[in-house]
């Protein structure tokens, strides 16, 4: 007869060991220093999941008022300059997404009252894909996309 309590103890220690290994290998963030950093959204593997976690919904309306400036062809996927701009009123946030990256959500910018809906940065892209910008204006989400062809991926590996 095998003591059931002993079984449970073994299972528990095995599980703890697995987590320890994952942390050691850098698969899990060792510590989340920032409580408001949206781990679920940034570690989401696809765009709808990232948007649901970040903004509460993945329903976006396509808008031509979102201007995305990015190169048609990026020779180096490690550094792709992206600028997102819009004329919309009451813009609360702008998110930048590289749709084919392993974790697509790259950045989310929360704009204060005086901020102009304009952000510019440089992102990594694993391969040719749409760069998607999601703008939260009022209570609605709008999105725009621009394809960037990547000749050398920028996510290592």
């Amino acid at each position, binding site marked *: 007869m095998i003591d059931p309590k002993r079984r449970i103890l073994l299972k528990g220690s095995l599980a703890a060991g697995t987590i320890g290994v994952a942390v050691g290998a850098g698969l899990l*963030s060792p510590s989340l220093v920032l409580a408001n950093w949206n781990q679920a959204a940034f570690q989401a593997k696809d765009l709808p999941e990232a948007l649901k976690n970040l903004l509460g919904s993945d329903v976006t309306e396509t808008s031509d008022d979102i201007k995305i400036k990015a190169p048609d062809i990026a020779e180096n996927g490690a550094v792709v300059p992206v600028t997102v701009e819009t004329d919309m009123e009451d813009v609360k946030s702008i998110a930048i997404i590289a749709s084919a990256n392993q974790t697509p959500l790259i950045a*989310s910018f*929360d704009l204060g009252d005086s901020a102009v809906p304009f952000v*510019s940065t440089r992102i*990594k892209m694993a391969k040719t894909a749409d760069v998607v910008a999601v703008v939260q204006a009022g209570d609605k989400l709008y999105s725009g996309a621009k394809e960037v062809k990547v000749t050398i991926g920028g996510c290592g590996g």
Partner: protein
Amino acid sequence: MSDIKIRAKLKDGQTEVKCLMNHPMETGLRKDEKTGELVPAHFIQEVVCKAKDQVVMTANWSGGVSKNPYLAFKFTGGEVGDPIEITWTDNKGETESAVENIS
């Protein structure tokens, strides 16, 4: 010396702030070419941008932002001489801050 370079210019009623930060921005998914082991994640998670102590913009980032990140944004209501303060915090809890006046 701080590792953040800031340039803030007032033009037509809008202040455009451009900044460059020194940071490796490791995703945690990249393998070291020599050892074949994963390079641990080390990236900026949050950038807070303040003008005259008022938060203008907060950026939340993943490791998908390029190494030595560049960031530009614009806001209204700034005046020449106003201080712009940029502060980043990374996933290891390291933080850096710099101040530059609007010109």
